[in-house]
């Protein structure tokens, strides 16, 4: 979720990667969304690392969270400051070893990093969609990813992996296309947002919509709702950290001063940090996409959709082997939510491993370099790969 803040250049990298586009659902064969609305053409921006093997059995689909994109690992050009958002996990010899696996990552529909979303030009009006863009769901995002996998010739996915909203897509894959998914790693995620998670998202959306520059989503030819989006991002950042991580990282320390300024400048380091993160975010993210993706996450309820409200019934459709991981200090998707999905998986006799990793960094822990998470994922993938070929 804070995908691009913590990573530095890494010599052991997949190297140069290229963002590619795949377009499908050309009218009149538009994609029918869960809401009933039609969308087409649909473009997905995607990147791949590693090589698909001869029997096409080594594909791993990585699913990004709210503010991520298709740039999972490597660099677009040698001069890039930062590698892809999960470069610490995806690469040669890393947890998801690109010497062994064919890794695919695409930007979600509704996003703003190359896939069709609210800032895409609507072919009917030749203007950006804005709020004419239909509300998409996690299911729609996954259905679009399925089109991409078909196009890439991947009929069976060795593993789908992702955290947070990416983790919701992982869960969706396992029940929507159960025969296709051999294994799944939902990280720091939930089968449905709690009221707490929805509440934070709503405040963030309100911050955007309260910005006059938002202009009902029509800001593409004028000033952008940067203030609103920055505040939305600041709220997000609070939820990705934890009491403990903020205490360690900032405490009550002041930013570049020895005493209070007795005005409303950023006195505390935590204020300064949030302002910086907010400001940086508006350069790379679209406010409407933020609205659409958070709404998709809030709507998601796989228990209701696939199990009439029962997680046990919902997971009855799944056939994957699971590795579920949560983090102790994650208060956005607390461990009890992972435990409840694990419980439902067990009741269905599914092969499930589960670990709560002791981590002070809150929800963001799944994105940070973490030797334990790396070895867990490596060991799990090696097993499912072995069992898949034997």
């Amino acid at each position: 979720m804070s995908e691009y803040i913590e990573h530095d250049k890494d010599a052991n990298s997949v190297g140069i990667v290229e963002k590619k586009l795949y377009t499908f659902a050309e009218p009149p064969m538009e994609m029918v969304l869960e809401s009933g609305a039609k969308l087409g053409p649909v473009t997905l921006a995607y990147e791949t690392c590693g090589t698909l093997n001869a029997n096409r059995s080594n594909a791993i689909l990585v699913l990004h969270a709210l503010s991520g994109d298709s740039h999972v690992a490597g660099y677009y050009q040698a001069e890039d400051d930062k590698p892809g958002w999960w470069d610490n996990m995806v690469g040669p010899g890393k947890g998801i070893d690109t010497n062994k696996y064919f890794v695919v990552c695409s930007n979600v529909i509704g996003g703003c990093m190359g896939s069709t979303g609210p800032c895409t030009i609507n072919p009917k009006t030749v203007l950006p969609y804005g709020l004419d863009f239909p509300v998409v769901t996690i299911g729609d995002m996954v259905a679009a990813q399925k089109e991409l996998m078909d196009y890439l010739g991947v009929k069976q996915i060795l593993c789908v992996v992702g955290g947070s909203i990416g983790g919701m897509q992982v869960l969706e894959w396992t029940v929507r296309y159960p025969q296709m998914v051999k294994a799944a790693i939902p990280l720091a995620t939930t089968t449905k947002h709690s009221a707490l998670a929805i509440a934070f998202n709503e405040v963030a959306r309100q911050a955007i919509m309260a910005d006059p520059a938002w202009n009902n989503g029509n800001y593409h030819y004028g000033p952008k709702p940067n203030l609103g989006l920055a505040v939305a991002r600041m709220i997000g950042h609070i939820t990705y950290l934890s009491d403990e991580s903020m205490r360690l990282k900032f405490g009550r320390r002041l930013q570049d001063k020895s005493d209070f300024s007795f005005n409303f400048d950023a006195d505390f380091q935590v204020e300064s940090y949030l302002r910086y993160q907010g400001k940086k975010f508006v350069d790379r993210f679209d406010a409407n996409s933020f609205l659409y993706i958070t709404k998709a996450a809030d709507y998601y309820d796989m228990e209701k959709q696939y199990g009439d409200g029962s997680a046990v019934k919902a997971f009855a459709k799944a056939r994957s082997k699971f590795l579920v991981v949560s983090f102790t200090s994650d208060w956005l998707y607390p461990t009890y939510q992972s435990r409840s999905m694990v419980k439902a998986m067990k009741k269905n006799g599914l092969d499930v491993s589960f670990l709560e990793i002791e981590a002070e960094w809150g929800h963001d822990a799944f994105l940070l370099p973490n030797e334990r998470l790396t070895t867990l994922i490596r060991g799990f993938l090696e097993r499912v790969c072995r069992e898949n070929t034997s």
Partner: protein
Amino acid sequence: MRYDLQIIASWIDPGARVLDLGCGRGELLRFLINNKQVHGSGIELEEDKVAACIEKGLTVLQGDINAEVLDYPDLSFDYVILSQTLQQVYEPDKLIRAIMRIGKRGIVSFPNFSHWACRLQLLYTGYAPVTKQLPYQWYNTPNIRVITIKDFRKFIDEVGLKILKEVAINTHSQNRYGKIIKFLPNVRATYGIFLIGN
């Protein structure tokens, strides 16, 4: 592998579905998967140990065995193993019943508290016994239950289950070597291992 685990492994049929409660670092599970092609999974409380298991490619859940056993459907396993853990269980009767609901057979091993070394220590020194199998003081032991081989037989009878097989062994807690004790096991054995069924 620990001697008691070697004996437990020898009781398990190839290809069986096995659940190891308190599976530690997955030593037994890995052995059973490699040598008996079982479908194995485990439950372990400590993060380090669970991680070690998953890294080895084992299916292991982090959790409290007393709660985790409740989620499995009836007869999900051919064998449910509880090795050297019973003495730490708060409600052994509940756990044993849960084991026999989810598994066709249960395998339980525990340190025998009526071993002569324990008896002599209590008799001659007056202090609570501290042995290689039970190396703790009364105030820092995780072992909240004092079980003897005779007690366990009586317990299994009282909860309405059957002992299908039993072996008493003399070994140290982490030792690969040991021997089976047939004469006066309740006095001479350091561990009891039982196969139980309905």
